[in-house]
């Protein structure tokens, strides 16, 4: 597995240089350039939304900095949490005087670094709350949601928190809505082939010609269980069944994210979505604003994830509110 890169040690910084060159709405900031923030100044009086995470997932995380989404994002090396400095800087740069929501995925490294950053900033009097993405149903039972990993569904929480903050909601309200969005989101992934870290000699795992991994994460880690390659429809059916079993619908509307992990042709994502849509319709669910594409990747991993976001009026309004970043525009 080859990579089109220079020195692996510069992979992240070179990618960020290209990203900000291509998208002037994004700027590198922070002592090591490991914060992406909106190019325009922080808006005073607005709750700041900060995320962070490792690299290798573009457009996640930092690609979602923009109007109605994130204010800043701290950036780690490939598949490593962002360091303490970048977390501190991301928080400071998002500070508009109304407090900060830290909204990121449930991973040990990320948590420790955001926690330490928070402790170090205590003196500065920036109020911070935390909501963790925990949408991956494969990584823990329904009774241990706090154990679950955050994967593609995190962007629904971005969208809702961002919309609320943009509309002037205060920190407690933004936090409540982000937590509600996470609580209403479920994701499951399937992997067909692994990816390779820039500094690693080999792909992160090997799969036989007829094997797939179910319950895959977004870091090249293997799936929770291995299965045989089946028709896309059968895979879709299993995914939707598991998702609906984990969080039975309470309303009649869901948004669906059929997300490519990096190397899955759009054609195949649409084939998958077609069946997901059918299964949801059979379950009496109406699909609102389906998202099909590479929203959260794992470099060149082959596979896809399906996320369901169960909507009520409040969440639907936030989901449909205008937003704009280089990789996602709503309204």
């Amino acid at each position, binding site marked *: 597995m080859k990579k089109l890169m220079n020195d692996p040690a510069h992979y992240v910084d070179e990618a960020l240089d290209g990203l900000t060159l291509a998208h002037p709405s994004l700027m590198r900031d922070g002592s090591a350039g490991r914060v992406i923030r909106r190019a325009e100044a922080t808006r005073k009086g607005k709750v700041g939304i900060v995320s962070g995470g490792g690299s290798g997932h573009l457009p996640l995380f930092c690609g979602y900095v923009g109007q109605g989404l994130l204010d800043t994002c701290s950036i780690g090396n490939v598949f490593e949490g*962002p360091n303490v400095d970048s977390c501190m800087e991301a928080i400071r740069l998002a500070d508009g005087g109304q407090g900060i929501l830290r909204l990121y995925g449930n991973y040990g490294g990320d948590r420790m*670094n955001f926690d330490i950053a928070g402790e170090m900033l205590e003196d500065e009097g920036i109020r911070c709350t935390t909501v963790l993405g925990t949408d991956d149903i494969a990584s823990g039972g329904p009774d241990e949601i706090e*154990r679950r990993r955050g994967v593609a569904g995190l962007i629904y929480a971005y969208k809702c928190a961002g919309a609320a903050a943009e509309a002037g909601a205060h920190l407690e309200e933004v936090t409540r809505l982000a937590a509600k969005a996470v609580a209403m989101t479920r994701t499951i992934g399937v992997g067909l082939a692994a990816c390779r*870290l820039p500094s690693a000699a080999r792909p*992160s795992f090997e799969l036989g010609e007829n094997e797939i991994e179910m319950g895959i994460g977004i870091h090249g880690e*293997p799936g*929770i269980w291995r299965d045989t390659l089946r028709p896309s429809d059968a895979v879709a059916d299993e995914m939707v069944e598991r998702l609906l079993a984990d969080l039975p619908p309470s309303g009649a509307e869901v948004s669906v994210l059929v997300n490519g992990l990096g190397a899955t042709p759009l054609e195949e994502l649409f084939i998958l979505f077609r069946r997901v849509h059918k299964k949801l319709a059979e379950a009496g669910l109406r699909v609102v604003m389906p998202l099909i594409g590479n929203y959260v990747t794992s470099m060149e991993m082959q596979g896809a994830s399906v996320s369901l976001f169960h909507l009520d009026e409040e969440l639907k309004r936030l989901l449909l509110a205008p937003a704009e970043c280089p990789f996602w525009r709503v309204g």
Partner: protein
Amino acid sequence: MELTVEQIAEGVRRANHAMVDLEQALNAADAKLGDGDTGSMLVRVIGGMAAAAPKTATSVSEAFGKLARAGMSATGSSLGTLFAGAMLLLAKQTKDRSVDWADLSALVGAARDGMMARGGAKLGDKTVLDMMDALAAALEGKTDAAQAGKAGVDAAERTLEAYRDRPCKMGRAKFFSEKSVGLDDPGMLAFAGLVRALATAK
């Protein structure tokens, strides 16, 4: 015998040197059930520590402080953050005092407790913590580098062995408890490799 800044700096040099051989093996161990970056991450962390010139510190505490800051800025991974956090704790614990090799057991124990508090893992979860716990015990009563080195290497080998067939309960691999039976934990493996390097002149 006193633990000196020079000894710390020499330890970093040895560890940094050892990473050349350890990198891909640790990546591969982490790739089994994790994200495959333990080795390359540590190369960067320890490389950063070496570049921070601990030799130029005027005290053991300052040396640990330099290592902590270098580690913190090099990564945000679980292991790296815990590792750098431990250095910070050592810097605090050794502030304004001289340190003896005989103190090392207690210091490693304090680092272990700090990492436990930070990362939320428990002893027995099959993480680097279990390695540190074993090391703290093994260092008890050891009063110089030679004794400490031998005891440390023995303890590391024994602990790897003892945990190999137990299930992992923390870190990315916790989602694969059953599959982790029979596999070394990458954090423990890293720690063992580094202890070996520290104990061996090269």
